[in-house]
C-alpha cells in the first residue's frame, strides 16, 4: 500500500475560472476521496429580498450567474407570476424560450471550450469560443447585452424581437450548425480526445439517482429527466426528445451536451416558425401574496426557485437551488478512484458554475 497524502486543489487553479476547493486524498496517483469546501463566492444574494422590492429582484436574480443569467431571471419571474396569477402573453413565452435556448447554446459551447482547455487541446478551446461569439452577437443585437440582458420582467419581457430579426437568426444558426458539427465531431471522433474521455469518471444511473444528480449528468447516465418536458414557457408547443446516453462516462456527458446544442438550434427553429403576434407583456398591478415553486431546466440541469411573498413589496423568502450544487455529490463519486491527472477534467464534466452554487 502506498503512502497517503492530501493535496489541496483550488481555490485558485489554472483550469477553473471560478474558485472551488477540493481536498484530494491520494494514494500514489490514485484519488481515494475528494472533500469539497465551498463558500469563496458566497454573497448572500437571497438576503437582498429585504432591501430590494420584488420588481428590482428580477435584476438581482439575473446576477446569480452570468452564464445562465437569462434563465435565472425567467425562473424568478415565473415564480412571481405564478403567485400573482398573471397570464404571460404567448409571444413573451416564445421569446423567453428562444432566449433560453440561445443561453443553452452559448453555455454548452463555452463548456466544450473549457473541457478542451482542461485536457490541453488549446485550439479546440479557441474554436468553441469563436463559435460562441456568434451567439453573443445575436444576444447583443436582440437585447443589448452580451452576458447580462435584463429583458425579463414580471408579466412578460421588455424587448421584442421583430420577425425579420428572428428569421435572420435562424439563417445564421443554419450556417453555424455546419461549423458546430465540424468542431464537435472532433470531440466525438478524435482518438486523442476519446482517450481522455472514454471510461473516465463513471457514474452509473443508480449512483446518479442516489446522489441526486441533475441535468446532463443524469441524462449521460441513461436517465430521462428534463424539466422542459414539464412544459413551462412555450415548451409544451415544441416537439423534442430528451437526449440521453447509456455510457455513463465523461464521453457520454460530452455527447449529451453536443446533442443538446443541435436540439437547441432545432427548438429555436420551431419557435420562430410558430411564434404568434401578440403583446409582449401584461401590466401587473398589486403586490404578490402567497408561495410558489418553479423548476426550470438550465444548461447545467434543474434549477429550483422558491418564492414566498407576504402582500408587501418585499418578499419573505427567495430561495434557489442551482444545478451545480446538486451535482457536487455526484462529482465526489466520480472522483473516487480516478487518476490525479483526470481531476481537472472530471471537475469540468459536471459543468461547474460556482457562482450559482454559492450565490
Amino acid at each position, binding site marked *: 500500500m502506498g503512502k497517503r497524502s492530501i493535496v489541496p486543489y483550488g*481555490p*485558485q*487553479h*489554472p*483550469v477553473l*475560472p*471560478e*474558485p472551488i476547493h477540493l481536498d484530494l486524498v491520494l494514494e500514489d496517483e490514485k484519488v481515494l476521496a475528494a472533500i469539497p469546501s465551498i*463558500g*469563496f*463566492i*458566497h*454573497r*448572500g*444574494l437571497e*438576503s*437582498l429580498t429585504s*432591501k430590494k422590492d420584488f420588481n428590482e429582484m428580477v*435584476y*438581482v436574480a439575473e*446576477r*446569480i*450567474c*452570468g*452564464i445562465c*443569467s437569462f434563465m435565472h431571471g425567467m425562473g424568478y419571474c415565473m415564480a412571481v407570476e405564478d403567485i400573482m396569477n398573471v397570464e404571460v402573453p404567448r409571444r413573451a413565452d416564445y421569446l423567453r424560450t428562444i432566449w433560453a435556448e440561445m443561453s443553452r447554446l452559448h453555455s454548452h459551447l*463555452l463548456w466544450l*471550450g473549457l473541457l478542451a482547455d482542461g485536457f490541453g487541446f488549446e485550439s479546440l*478551446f*479557441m*474554436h468553441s*469560443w*469563436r463559435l460562441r*461569439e456568434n451567439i*453573443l452577437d445575436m444576444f447583443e443585437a436582440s437585447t443589448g*447585452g*452580451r*452576458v*447580462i440582458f435584463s429583458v425579463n420582467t414580471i408579466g412578460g419581457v421588455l424587448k421584442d424581437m421583430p420577425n425579420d430579426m428572428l428569421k435572420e437568426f435562424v439563417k445564421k444558426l443554419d450556417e453555424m450548425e455546419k461549423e458546430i458539427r465540424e468542431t464537435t465531431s472532433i470531440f466525438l471522433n478524435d482518438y486523442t480526445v476519446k482517450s481522455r474521455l472514454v471510461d473516465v469518471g463513471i457514474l452509473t444511473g443508480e449512483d446518479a439517482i442516489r446522489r441526486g444528480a441533475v441535468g446532463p449528468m443524469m441524462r449521460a447516465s441513461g436517465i430521462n429527466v428534463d424539466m422542459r418536458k414539464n412544459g413551462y414557457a412555450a415548451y409544451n408547443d415544441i416537439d423534442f426528445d430528451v437526449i440521453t446516453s447509456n455510457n455513463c462516462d465523461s464521453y457520454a456527458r460530452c455527447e449529451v451536451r453536443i446533442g443538446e446544442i443541435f436540439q437547441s438550434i432545432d427548438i429555436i427553429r420551431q419557435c420562430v416558425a410558430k411564434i404568434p403576434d401578440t403583446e409582449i407583456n401584461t401590466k401587473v398591478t398589486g403586490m404578490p401574496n402567497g408561495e410558489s415553486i418553479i423548476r426550470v431546466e438550465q444548461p447545467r440541469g434543474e434549477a429550483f426557485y422558491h418564492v414566498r411573498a407576504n402582500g408587501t413589496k418585499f418578499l419573505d423568502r427567495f430561495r434557489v437551488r442551482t444545478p451545480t450544487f446538486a451535482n457536487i455529490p455526484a462529482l465526489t463519486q466520480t472522483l473516487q478512484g480516478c487518476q490525479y491527472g483526470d481531476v481537472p477534467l472530471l471537475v469540468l464534466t459536471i459543468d461547474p*458554475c*460556482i*457562482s*450559482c452554487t*454559492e450565490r
Partner: protein
Amino acid sequence: MSTIHKSPWLLHYDGSSCNGCDIEVLACTTPVYDVERFGVINTGNPMHADIFLITGGINSQNEAVVKQIYEQMPQPKVVIAVGTCACTGGIFKECYNIKGGADTVIPVDIYVPGCAARPESIIDGVVKGIALFKEKAAALKASENAN
C-alpha cells in the same frame, strides 16, 4: 523588461463575481478579441503574472486568498478591478457577506466599470495597465540604483 511592457501576462481570479465578468475576461483571450496574438497570456501561476485582474467583491472567505495571490506576484505589479462588483461591491454591496470592492484588501490601480464589463473596456484597462506597469518598473529600477 521590454517584452513584459508589450506582452504582460495576466492572472485572473474570481472574487465573488456572478461569472459574467469572468467569461468576458476569458473572451478577451479567445478569437474576435484575441489579445493572445500580442503575447498577452492568461496564466494560472501568480509568480508568472504581471497584471492581476480581479472580478467580484471581497467576502470573508476569499479575502485571504486574494491577499495571498497579490503577495505571490513579483514586483512590479498592476491590479485591475474588472466590473462594478470589484470596483465598489456593485449590486451586492448591501449583502451581508460582501465587504466591498477589491480595494478593501489590496491596492487597486485601475478600475474597469460595467456590469458585466465588456471585453473592449477590459482590454482598454489592460492597455492603461501596461503604461502604469512601465512607470512602476522605472521607479523600481531607480530605487534599486539608489541603493
